[in-house]
């Protein structure tokens, strides 16, 4: 099969964003995933979020591992460079890319197999290092691309399409991201665009390690009765923590709220996360209590979604390394090569 890029026929009346682009300018090639796959909805949400934020697409680098989920970067942001790396290793490739050029926006897309099994280590270390990125796991509880084996996020007792029952404890990537020091952690559902789009926007503006666990049903292998990652199951158990509006560059605030109803979190880049709280006892700026809250709700059988934790003043890897403000890949000979006089001194010190 050869896939040609989708022809770009712009309707003259398509709305444009502040950089003069239409939503279509954020699209990619036509998806080859199964009709109804949750992953396609996430691609659509990414497109919407980037359009809303008016990010020039070529200023984003999109990276992924291997899996149906990891194929999706081909299907959005066609004008951005993409890298489909190896299974479970997107985090290291993304880290390296970020080291090379701190000025781009890094979007990592992975699956639950990619991040919770083979790539669990890399997932963990990229979080604790504070790589400035948006890391999305498209979580369907199975290995889609290899046809339906359980993944490490499958719930204990979840039933596979062919009848097998999962006996192992699930890994909750969002909870682990909180524990590992990610500075933005959210969970959402591919079927809830209203919740997902602002979360992606907030993650993209966050200047640190931002992680979103997006439940994303696999219609081919994990959407049956007995699965805990099916559309029906997630809809029934979805328990939203909050509602998020994101205001970039102090957008006009259109809706007014009663006092106490909203919390505003100002991020380092000036964007404001306006949260309408739906849960008592959840403070998204307190790591320990956020952790406690999701564990508690999980014990009650609920899947909490929304913004779980945010540190509005994160320290990203380049800051902790103390690198120059200019992208490393833009430095030239005069900045990088110490020259012959310095070398003569080194030689002298070795005699």
């Amino acid at each position, binding site marked *: *099969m*050869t*896939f040609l*890029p989708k022809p770009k026929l712009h309707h003259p009346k398509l709305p444009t964003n502040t950089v003069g682009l239409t939503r279509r300018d954020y699209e990619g*090639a036509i998806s080859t995933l199964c009709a109804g796959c949750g992953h396609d909805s996430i691609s659509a949400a990414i497109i919407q979020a980037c359009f809303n934020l008016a990010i020039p*697409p*070529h*200023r984003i*680098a999109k*990276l992924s591992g291997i899996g149906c989920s990891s194929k999706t*970067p*081909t299907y959005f942001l066609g*004008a*951005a*460079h*993409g*890298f*489909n*790396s*190896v299974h479970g*290793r997107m*985090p*290291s*490739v*993304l*880290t*390296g*890319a*970020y*080291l*090379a*050029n701190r*000025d*781009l926006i890094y979007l990592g897309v992975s699956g639950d197999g990619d991040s919770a099994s083979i790539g669990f*280590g*890399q997932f*963990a*270390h990229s979080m604790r*290092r504070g790589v400035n990125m948006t890391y999305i796991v498209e979580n369907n509880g199975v290995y889609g691309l290899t046809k339906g084996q359980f993944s490490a996020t499958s719930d204990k007792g979840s039933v596979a399409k062919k009848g097998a029952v999962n006996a192992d404890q699930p890994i909750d990537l969002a909870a682990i991201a909180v524990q590992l020091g990610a500075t933005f952690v959210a969970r959402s559902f591919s079927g809830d665009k209203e919740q997902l789009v602002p979360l992606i926007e907030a993650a993209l503006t966050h200047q640190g390690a931002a992680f979103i666990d997006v439940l994303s049903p696999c219609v081919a292998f994990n959407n049956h009765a007995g699965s805990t990652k099916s559309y029906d199951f997630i809809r029934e158990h979805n328990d939203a923590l909050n509602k998020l509006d994101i205001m970039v560059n102090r957008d006009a605030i259109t809706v007014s709220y009663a006092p106490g109803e909203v919390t505003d979190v100002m991020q380092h880049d000036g964007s404001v996360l306006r949260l309408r709280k739906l849960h008592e006892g959840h403070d998204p700026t307190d790591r320990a209590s956020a952790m406690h809250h999701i564990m508690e709700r999980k014990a009650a059988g609920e899947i909490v979604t929304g913004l779980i934790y945010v540190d509005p003043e994160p320290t990203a*890897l380049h800051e902790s*390394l*103390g*690198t*120059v*403000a200019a992208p*490393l*890949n833009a*430095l*030239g*000979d005069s900045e*990088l*090569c*110490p*020259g*012959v006089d310095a*070398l003569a001194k*080194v*030689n002298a010190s*070795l*005699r």
Partner: protein
Amino acid sequence: MPQPLIATNDFVVKFANVNGSGSASANGLFAKSILRMGVPIASRNIFPSNIQGLPTWFEVRVSEAGHMGRRGGVDMMVAMNPQTWDRDIAEIEAGGYLFYDSTRPMPKSKFRDDITIIGCPLTEITNAAYSDPRQRQLFKNIVYLGALSALLDMEVEAVQHCIAAQFKGKEKLVPANYAALEMGRSWAQANLQCPIGLTLKRADKVGDRIFVEGNAAAGLGAVYGGATVCAWYPITPSTSLAEAFEKYCTRLRKDPETGEKRYAIVQAEDELASIGMVIGAAWNGARAFTATSGPGISLMQEFLGLAYFAEIPAVLFDVQRAGPSTGMPTRTQQSDLLSAAYASHGDTKHVMLLPEDPSECFTFGADAFDLADRLQTPIFVMLDLDIGMNDWLCEPFAWDPNRRMDRGKVLDAAGLDAAQNFGRYQDIDGDGIPYRTWPGTHPEKGAFFTRGTSRDRQARYTEEGAPYVDNMQRLLRKFETAKSVVPRPIMRAAKEKARDGVIYYGSTSAAMKEALSALEAEGVHLDALRIRAFPFHQDVADFIAAHDRVFVVEQNRDAQLRTLLMNEESIDPAKMIAVLHYDGTPITARFIQAAIADRASAANVLPFRKATP
């Protein structure tokens, strides 16, 4: 008792110590003091994979003639480790010398009667002079240095100079060390026959050469080569390479005004992550490298295939050691050649550079980044523990002030505007090397999706056979191009017309040069070719074709370079004679000489005289 050995500026001294006893710095002072006298030395550490308590050895070859390889044999043993006493004594050449701590009497059976035995009550001397146990231990090393300086007729000023240099910044410590030195020296002068038959004499043979380890040289090479991203995971014997990069960057690569770093070093969680970061950074336009050893290369296999097919300019320094992980991690070998050359799955081949000494580690360390960018493929710089972790006396580092980084075929925004129909994998120039763009270059043009092989010339996804084959053929063309841009082999013609040749590479070089002269003195004449890179330059095939037989000298069991030569150049195995040294110690001139002389005589092809012992 044979005649005691008599030699000036040409002998081997070996120190047998216990790891962690502080001997390394005294031994280093001994080596540097001789250099200070203008006499070349070659020194080697033999150390265990342990921090404290196990045996270590330090061998100093004094060679006014400038032989930098190991000779083989020991003329004087400084036996400071009771644990290894028996084997250390056994190693001394007949007529050689033993220096030991005679504080406690030893039974006569513990000695040999064909060597000169020199006892010095080091413990007694230091116990009398110091009360603190740590001081007693540390100064014992300086005391034996003092005694040796008298026995070998070293210039005391040279030793003092080196002590002062060592404690630069901690001048307070200098007088105490001078005193300990004098303690040993005067005791020897008063109580021993000084000098012995082995003596040092000021010469002028060191010149402007420098004394440095290969890892430091390669790390500095990476600084000069413009590397900005280093991702690594600690593993002996490569660790000091990444550390040297950091040390030199701290000195040479900070913004002079802000103090900010023009480099990023990440100690990754493992070697998979190291190479992943290097690939990501190189994809995004930074010069990036990792430093590792065989076990790390094994872990990187999958990623190396991706880097090959995705055409990523990554640089890897492989400081080779004896494998596997639980093998002899602190011993030297050249045993990663095949696993690097053909690393990964699918049809892959990789470029390797094979430096012979620290000086070339610096040059190749910098060149690797130009080659990687030029060829858009991983480049392996193959050091080994012998080059990497020993100080070598070598040519000073050289740099052309007019040199600029060759970033290869990268299109910037203007280039993209000028280009017609950019396609990432098109072979516009016929050399197999396509044009690439970095992320973020142009709002509309030049973006592409990087993946393995399922792509066409425009980088569009395809799983069809014809574009796959087309791409694989282009990669072969690129590998052909590599042959003419990697460092050429260096030929050393025999003095007389030779029917046989010898091929060697890397750290074998020093011992090989000496062996060639020795063989020549025996009437065995060989043309020699030092291979400096893979893929092989046309010169290599020509050299083999021009000789009846070719010895291939290497430091591994399976004759890996020979395999590579046979495989890549379709050479008849019968013509290629393997000379292999792989016990974990660096190869010696004597070993090569004997191995080649043996075979040369057995085949009765060359005039041959037996070597006089």
